[in-house]
């Protein structure tokens, strides 16, 4: 978190990076308005586990440190609780910037932690198949892959969820799965043109 940014050699500086990030956020993210006050990091519940606080990350974006920014775990630790965004005196849309950074990093396959993007991808593939979220499939695959040691401890609560009807063994489906898949395919195609 206290990595000395200025110690790094000034290679690979990408002065257009801030524009690229802002373009990855719908509407006006106001990222260029950041005054480096640090209210965001001070308000962030998960800042302790971030490689860089949001403020540091935004300074790095502005400095064009594309590699370091996209390699940071900070966007992946953002829980989008919006404390930072309602407190930001410049009204920067911080969680949306984090989403934008994740989408750029993900597109280039360079997310620093594997559990977070994998969880997102498993979730998405279930929705793509059924049109609804499928908890049982999601947790089974996710825990086996990333947290097998947590399974024994979670099992009793999981069984309770199954017994009380809070989790289904089988997925629920929407009728127009085909239509949904067509929409998603088209959206993915348009995404690639961005």
């Amino acid at each position: 978190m206290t990595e000395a940014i200025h110690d790094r050699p000034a290679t690979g500086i990408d002065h257009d990076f801030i524009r690229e990030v802002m373009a990855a956020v719908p509407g006006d993210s106001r990222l260029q308005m950041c005054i480096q006050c640090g209210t965001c990091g001070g308000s962030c519940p998960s800042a302790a586990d971030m490689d860089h606080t949001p403020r540091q990350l935004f300074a790095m974006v502005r400095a064009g440190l594309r590699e370091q920014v996209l390699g940071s775990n900070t966007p992946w630790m953002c829980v989008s609780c919006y404390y930072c965004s309602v407190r930001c005196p410049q009204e920067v849309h911080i969680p949306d910037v984090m989403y934008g950074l994740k989408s750029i990093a993900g597109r280039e396959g360079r997310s620093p932690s594997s559990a977070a993007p994998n969880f997102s991808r498993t979730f998405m593939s279930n929705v793509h198949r059924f049109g609804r979220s499928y908890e049982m499939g999601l947790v089974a695959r996710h825990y086996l892959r990333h947290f097998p040691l947590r399974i024994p401890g979670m099992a009793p609560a999981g069984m309770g969820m199954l017994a009380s009807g809070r989790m289904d063994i089988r997925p629920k489906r929407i009728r127009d799965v085909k239509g949904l898949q067509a929409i998603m395919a088209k959206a993915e195609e348009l995404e690639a043109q961005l």
Partner: protein
Amino acid sequence: MKEFLYYPGCSMSGTAKGYADSLEAVAGPLGIDLREIDDWSCCGASEYFSIGPLRGYALVARNLALAQREANGSRTVVAPCSLCYVNLAKTNKYVRTDPVLAGKVNEALSVAGLSYAPGSVEVRHLFEIVIHDVGADAVREKVVRPLKGLKVAPYLGCLVTRPDPEKRWKAKEHPLEIDRLLEALGAEVVDYPLRTDCCGGHLSQISPGMGLEMLRRLLDSAERLGADMLATICPMCQMNIDLYQAEVNRRFKTDFKIPILFFTQLVGLAFGMDAKTLGIGSEVVSAKRALAKIGVEVPEPEAAEPVAAGASGEKPRAPRPRKGPELPMPRMPKDKGVGR
């Protein structure tokens, strides 16, 4: 009866069964008529925008388009889940204010014969409808069994008062409206300072160190204030606090046993309905002891004991195995306050 377009969201037919059951029971008495949007799909939770933003907006907009098609008596979409609400509300705002995004979203929708005219529906959270349209006074009139002596910590979580795209809330960090509602039910409301703090969302799944720590803070504060239970308005908050409480206890050597119920379940109890009708009894952390204070009996869950049949690959032989070597966890030096 006021009519609304109802977007239940995936949790309501799964993990938030108690929310669904109790909402069905209390909607009528509250004067809320919920018409479920036909063939709605997932809202994408917090997963789509990270990986495929345009797919995320298109997924949400599909639901807005379906709602628009059904809108006649009402053009208000109601979501009981905070995550669904914020995704629907934000997308609704972004397609209204960003014509390029709206164009692309509609281009994607068109392949399934759908389209959405930005702004043609409005999106609101169920809790906000109960607070602003029904009101605490109307709720109080229907109370037949005041929740007297029940100490409740009101827990809203983040996403209803923040980011608040349509500016419906004055207080974004410490709103007191839920206190008025719970007081109207006769409950004793504790001034819970972490009421709009985050439950960690999906961090409990992807980064347990931080996710469980965030849950520990919430539970610790509620316990220090002597709360019998938490009352919430969000399926994700409920699931995190309920399902992961045992894991929090194991990790932090704590002994929390704080149940968390949905506000609609408490409304139903105060209206004199029985616990089973309201889906009470499906919690992992039992509300039995807390509800005994108001003379409500909680039905026993049907044989929830883990008998054989391991659902996942590894079978739970020993209920509490010693875990292998783990990363060292930052220990909180007995934090004293309940504040942030």
